């Protein structure tokens, strides 16, 4: 049963067993505007919680994406190379950035539930 969590940095992670899929939120893609480039780490990269995991660029500027929890990168979404706009169109699904082998599932405890994240965004507006 997959568990969805969010960070204050507008990343999401969906954990199923020891596989975690990471992306940026719907709110994030909407605020960033047209995404033109995504730079992903190579498979095998070891990430600690909070490490810079990726860079996402909109037309005007670049933003850093951080690892919500630690783990080793098992897959990077190559589709984003040819069509970074997938992130705008489907941030929560096809616009995923990387998959990791979860190192320590207890790190999820520090992250927000979907409701908490929704509340946080409401507070921003």
């Amino acid at each position, binding site marked *: 049963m997959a568990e969805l969590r969010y960070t204050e940095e507008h990343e999401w992670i969906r954990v199923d067993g020891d596989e975690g899929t990471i992306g940026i939120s719907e709110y994030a893609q909407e605020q960033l505007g047209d995404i033109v480039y995504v730079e992903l780490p190579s498979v095998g990269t070891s990430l600690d919680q909070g490490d*810079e995991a990726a860079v996402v660029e909109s037309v*005007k500027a670049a933003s850093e994406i951080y690892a919500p929890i630690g783990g080793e990168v098992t897959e990077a979404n190559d589709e984003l190379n040819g069509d970074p706009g997938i992130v705008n169109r489907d941030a929560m699904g096809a616009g995923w950035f990387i998959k990791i082998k979860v190192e320590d599932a207890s790190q999820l405890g520090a992250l927000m539930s979907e409701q908490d994240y929704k509340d946080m965004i409401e507070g921003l507006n």
Partner: protein
Amino acid sequence: MPRDGFTRRTMRLSTKLANLSGPRTEGALVLAKIRSRMTASCCASVTAVVGPMSEPIANPAKKTPLHTLHVSQGGKMVPFAGYEMPVQYPAGILTEHLHTRTHAGLFDVSHMGQIRVTGPRAAQDLENLVPGDIGGLAVGDMRYTLFTADDGGILDDLMVTRVEDGLFLVVNAACKEADFAHLQKYLPSTSTLQMLEDRALLAFQGPDAVLVLERLAPAVAKLSFMTATEINVAGIPCFISRSGYTGEDGFEISVAADRAHELAVLLLDAPEVAPIGLGARDSLRLEAGLCLYGHDIDPTTTPVEAGLSWAIGKRRRSDGGFPGADHILAQLKDGVPRKRVGILPEGRAPAREHTEIRAPGGGVIGEITSGGFGPTVGGPVAMGYVTSEFAQVGSPVELVIRGKARPAKVVKLPFAPHNYVKKN
């Protein structure tokens, strides 16, 4: 991933997005930095460099006559040169950019300065301050020129149009106060100056612009590139030039502030027309290879280094008589140590302003001054300065982006071909 010591040009997503709600938007962050730098370089006043979470203490942002329209169209408003301007509309920057190159886009550029210079010697008087041939302009002719400094640097770039009783100038928004002061100080007293505070300025660009405009004012079809005239558009008196900042055919329309909304609505009513924000204005001009003051040109760049020698009039090259003439004319003769060039990254990562340029496997040879994503090109595009030995088209260079050297090459400008409708 270990953190290297490279200069961070990216930003934590939360910081960026935290500034996206309310008046402090994503654009505000990027553009506030641009604005403070532009102000610092062309105005006498000292402006504090804006930190990521703060705005300089300033007067509340000014509004153009089209502000209400922008908001009603869903414009994402950001502060720019002291004004609240739309950086984009719901369509987004990519769509707005592509729409302009294929149909027609309407831009509000009322934040720019419109200045009248009146007097029988207006053209000759202005030549004291610019390297262009202004005296040779016939009524209705328009020219791009530069305010130069005594050391040959550039104080601003501007458009000058010869009108019946003198000249009509359009200057950059961030420099308009300084430019006006500059004119007031140095223009001979035979000319009088007036900042036109009660006028709006609209840019109407793209292949369909002439089609839409001539339905309302048939006379516009007779205008060729870089000419201007007074024309009534559906009964609204306008001063229209066939010119622009996108590389496409198009017009710039000066209109009374209290008729601007009416004119804009009329144009937006046409099916070919979409409203376009400052974000796309920037990507369009970058693909067109056009300079942005405060970035590609500033007080540290001479017209020759900037590749703008064509703006130095033929007669002016022998006569001089403009600030910095000695140095500039010497550069025309002897060459320059560095040049502005187009740079095409070979990968997909954009190279933004201040990106270091290196010789292949070698040392620093320059810096990017404008860079981003080109929607028409479909990839990253940039302009920057390199030492002259690397300025040849085809020269391979390296761009240091996030601590990694990435291949690129010097290319001919523009990235997107110009579509000006010139006189036969």
